[in-house]
């Protein structure tokens, strides 16, 4: 069976769902960040797959690279935030941090 676009999209959707699930269900903030990474990578797979099967040239790949760079920057900032969280609450469990309620 030849691997086609739908397979990639399927993998991407699964990955996205896994990312969403991780974001929603994990208690640890680091794990939530990892869920975010999964979603970003699911998007990357889509870019690259459309770039390969569509008639877009190398645009998808270039967007993918941008996303990787963006993800790196995002991880840096997010980890800084997590550190600050820990400083403030002595805890990085997102369940217990509900100051937004007030």
């Amino acid at each position: 069976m030849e691997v086609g676009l739908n397979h990639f999209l399927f993998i991407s959707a699964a990955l996205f769902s896994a990312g969403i699930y991780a974001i929603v269900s994990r208690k640890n903030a680091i794990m939530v960040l990892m869920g975010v990474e999964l979603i970003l990578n699911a998007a990357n797979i889509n870019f690259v797959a459309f770039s390969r099967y569509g008639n877009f040239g190398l645009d998808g790949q270039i967007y993918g690279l941008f996303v990787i760079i963006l993800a790196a920057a995002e991880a840096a900032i997010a980890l800084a935030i997590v550190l600050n969280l820990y400083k403030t609450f002595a805890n990085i469990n997102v369940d217990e941090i509900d100051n937004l309620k007030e």
Partner: protein
Amino acid sequence: MNESLLINITLAVLFLPLIGFTFTVLSGGKIKKAFTFEVFISSITLILSVFLLYAKISAFVEKDILFSFSWINFGILPKWGELNIKLGIKLDNITVIMAFVVTLISFLVHIFSVEYMKGDKRYNRYFAYLGIFTFSMLGIVFTDNILGMYIFWELVGLSSYLLIGFWFEKKSASDAGKKAFIVNRIGDIGMFAGILILFFTYHTFNFNEIFEQMSAGKIPFNSDFWMTLTGILIFMGAIGKSAQFPLHVWLPDAMEGPTPVSALIHAATMVAAGVYLSVRIFVMLTADTMLVIAIIGAITSFIAATIALTQNDIKKVLAYSTVSQLGYMIMAVGVGAYAFAFFHLVTHAFFKACLFLGSGSVIHSMHHEQDIQNMGGLRKKMPLTYISFLVSTLAISGVPFTSGFLSKDGILAGTLAFGKLTGHWLIPIAAFTVALMTAFYMFRLVILTFHGEPRDVHKFEHAHESPKLMVIPLIVLSLLSLFIFYTPNPVSPDQGWFLSEWIKTPSQVVPENSRFDFLINSAGEQTNHGKIIHSVEYTETLHSVHYPALFLSLILGGLGILIAFVIYQWKKINPDAITAKIKPLYLFSLNKWYIDELYDKTFIAGTLLVSRLSAWFDTNLVDGIVNGSAYVIKSFSNIVGWFDKYIIDGFVNFTAFLSGFLGIGLRRLQTGKVQTYIILVIVSAIILFVFFRPF
């Protein structure tokens, strides 16, 4: 001696009592002896008025002195012409004599009251009231216009009211004051209407100007009827003030006032104001008016005399005798005996003031006992009071050598002539009957009070002759009841200076066709300095009835005195036996002809009925409408309120409740946990995607 001096003195006589009143009433509370000033003022007033009398009679006996000033000047009015209301003074012989009478009696009453009222807690106020009364009475006497007369007329009404109700703690006294005031007001309404008719017709209030225009032929509404009506309306004032039937009911009740006041106001002066007014307007009375006046006078004197027969209160007897004598005077005006009406006014003022002050003296010494049933024998205890009382009683009974004999005889002759000339015989018959009854009841009074044995021994033993200040006025007044002050001839007043020189019957000014025939002047009867008196026919008739009237009145007077002595002095006839025989008549007289009861049942009950009907109308209909509209508005408000409360407020509250409810529900979404929000975002995105999907 010039006119302006007389005018100034007149003004002084008029206003001095007002000054006395003002001073006494303002300082009476502070200065204990304030009344002495009032007494002093009254003596000055007396001296000045004696001088006024002397000056007027000696220097101006034929001339009226006039003085007037513009009171309110309206300028020229449209459809009316010039209107300038003047007040002023008119001094003729009647005026100065009357002023003398008023000031003399006022002065004597002042002196008498110093003793009589001693110890009263409103002593100074009493004298102040006497002052305001003297002022108002002199105002009536001096005024030259009917408006001024009306003003002072009301002022004497006020002072009379104040003095009748002087002991206002007593309900009967305050009631009597109110009664006098209200009854007088009824007469005054008529007088006021008459004044308005005169003013409307003649555009002036001045007596002389009115009479001049009238003699030129101008009469109200060009109708004899209106002329008669005007006369009767103005005479209504005299009916009220002089206590004529049917308004006589206030005067007996007015005896609730202090006795000196009864002497001054309710016997001598104020009640004579009605006669004075009738004398003043005599020239404008038509034949019909005069007949009405004569009949009212006759009825009054008859009714009052019959009531006086049975009264037991010393002051009530005198009160009814006053009403009766006032009826005489009014009757005299009505029958055309002008001079005798005024003459009787003067003589009556003196002897009746003396009688009242004498009764005051008796009451004073008997410690306020007024019932003659409890008196008797006082002759020995109070000789001076007795003698003066007796002289005055002789005068009122018409015994010769007294003033009352002269004036009464004149009036009786006048009525007899009137009867003979016009055929109204009932008037002289009433007059002579009254003469008989007067002699009887006055001597009944004297005998029961002063003669015989004391019936209340305890009170009799405490009785004593009154102090000098009370006795002197009595003696002065009883001396003035003798004939010598009026005429040198004790049986005929015609030669006296009083009648022949000073008082002349003026010629009437109403059109000749509405006069009595005997008052129409025919040519060649000019007598007494241009003043025309009566026709030859009248003079002759008067002359022809003079001696019959004289003898008849002597016989009747003597008979009355004799009966009184037979019954009460010698006790030949038991009065109780007589009264038992004519019980209904006796009760009728004792209860004053039931006139008070009649008024109670008719006018007073009627007024109360009307008041109750009005009150019912007010509470049930007027208040009903008001309450009904209030009820309607209240119900409507209730509906509006209900609508507001439940519909509008319900809507508002429901909105609030809904928001709250939603808030409670939605609050749960706000967990503060980031992951919840993310779920919401995802769910929302999915929903949006499902709804707005492009395929």
